[in-house]
């Protein structure tokens, strides 16, 4: 009996496949619509109004005013610029460190599993708590970083020039393991015979790296880069706990938080949230496309 015919004759017993399918899928979709789509729709409406969550007045329709205000506000452009700089520093740092460590790890040795697991620990931790604790590490007097590097009394988190760099380094420490994990998966999937063939042809190390290693790792590396770009763009926990957004570190998410929950400018914050949302959805679109490609391989 073919499998199709089998399920057809059996469909009469118990619930039909169609009923099971709907029963299994629809609750999840409804749940996500209720907790994600509906609230976002609500905030879209509010972004065209003048409204504060602490005030008693009802929302007043103002059209595109909030969006115009945001796009004409040089301060917010400053936040965008800062966030871009942060994304660039952290992602390139993570790729360099993560890929570098993966290249070193990509060989057999005793204790490899343990070393890899220990290296992966930081990315599983809470960014808020890690950020809080790194405040001590960066401390001018008590901090072990100044002590280890030999910079006596160097000011990191309270300095407008260095605070963002310090946060970025912490971010790189936390998330290089992510790039490492994906690179390692890519590296270990490269068939050994390609390397053997290349060594028979007496290809140089650089040639092997450029023509074999790099192209074969690139798909996974790209996934890592896009994902980290998106996450760096959204950074809130880490920076907020290290500087509270002061000393030239007010990233977009922190700006948004201050606008919404400190100044209670609810409708304007909804408009800024939507601008961020569109950017994030654009990046995540690309990300998921690459994930799907990886899945099909």
């Amino acid at each position, binding site marked *: 009996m073919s499998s199709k015919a089998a399920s057809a004759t059996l469909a009469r017993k118990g*619930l039909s496949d169609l009923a099971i399918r709907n029963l299994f899928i629809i609750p999840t979709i409804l749940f996500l619509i209720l907790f994600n789509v509906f*609230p976002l729709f609500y905030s879209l409406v509010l972004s065209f109004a003048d409204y504060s969550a602490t005030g008693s007045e009802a929302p007043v329709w103002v059209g595109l005013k909030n969006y115009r205000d945001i796009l004409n506000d040089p301060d917010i452009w400053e936040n965008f610029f800062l966030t871009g700089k942060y994304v660039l520093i952290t992602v390139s740092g993570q790729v360099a460190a993560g890929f570098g460590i993966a290249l070193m790890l990509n*060989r057999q040795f005793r204790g490899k599993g343990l070393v890899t697991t220990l290296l992966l620990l930081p990315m599983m931790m*809470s960014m808020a708590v890690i950020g809080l604790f790194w405040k*001590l590490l960066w401390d001018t007097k008590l901090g072990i970083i100044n002590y280890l590097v030999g910079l006596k009394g160097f000011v990191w988190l309270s300095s407008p020039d260095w605070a963002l760099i310090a946060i970025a380094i912490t971010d790189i420490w936390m998330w290089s393991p992510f790039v490492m994990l994906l690179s390692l998966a890519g590296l270990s999937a490269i068939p050994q015979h390609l390397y053997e063939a290349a060594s028979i042809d007496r290809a140089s190390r650089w040639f092997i790296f450029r023509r074999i290693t790099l192209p074969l790792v690139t798909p996974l590396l790209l996934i890592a880069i896009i994902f980290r770009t998106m996450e760096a763009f959204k950074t809130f926990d880490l920076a907020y706990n290290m500087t509270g957004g002061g000393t030239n570190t007010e990233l977009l998410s922190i700006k948004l938080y201050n606008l919404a929950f400190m100044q209670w400018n609810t409708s304007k914050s909804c408009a800024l949230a939507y601008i961020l949302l569109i950017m994030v959805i654009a990046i995540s679109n690309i990300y998921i496309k690459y994930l799907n490609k990886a899945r099909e391989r």
Partner: protein
Amino acid sequence: MPAVESKRYKAINGIIVALVVAVMLIYLIPFYWICSTAFKSRLDAATVPPTVFFKPTVTPFVKLVTKRSQRRNVVTPEQYAEAKWYEKLVYDEGERILKESHYLNRFWNSIVIASISTFLALGLGTLTAYGFSRFKVAGENDWLFFILSTRMLPPVVVAIPIFLMYRKIGIFDTHMGMIFLYTSFNLSFAVWLMKGFIDEIPKEYEEAAMVDGYTRFQAFWKIVLPQLRTGMAATAVFSFITAWNEYALALMLTSRKAQTAVPFIPSQIGSGLTDWSTIAAGTFVFLLPVAILTYYLRNHLLRGVTFGAIRK
């Protein structure tokens, strides 16, 4: 390969392995620092330059679970002699215990909220994953994309309307509100990860069972679910860690009653001199479960961080 070449190759290999171990040790310094600071007295934690050798004490942990006043000279020698061991530790640092702190309560909130939301997300997620894996769904990829994209939303963006909504229906700062929120957050993750695991189980198993007279649901329950045990465990641990670690939503949508441990720890910095050893103790207790869970999860990490897309 000639012997000389292979010898050289071995030497290079050895150097690189030594290098990678060195990198790992440097990488672990922050963790070492958390652990050691958690066992330092207040004075040792505030030494310049930082001390590596010190007399370990559990005082920070006592301080973590208590609220104290800093008035000195309030204890007579008799009172001191009668005090319990943990009270003595605090007296030694010139403070006295007033009452219990909220840390244990916040820790408990974290456990409750993370566990229940994990349970819900895993349950719903597994069913949905089965639905997508086994049946034809019109626009399947679009639905899956929709489900995953909800996970990518910046927390601050979601928090604003959720805050208004929760306030209106009265579940701001409640366990229920946080559980729902974390469930929705983990649900998309659970669907994707579980779908990967279910796709690996051949359809033929269920079809054979159905030929033997099982209904579709029985086949799912008795044939598929038992084989998903590892996958479900991995998904559950991942979801639990995510909920456990979450900060931004908890910061914005709780204030006291349902506050979890993460937003609570930074709020302890408070006024005056920062008591780093107590913060380290709180951090230590908070991170330890994650470190242990990560160890158990080590073979599924790749799958987890790519939402089940890359299986190795």
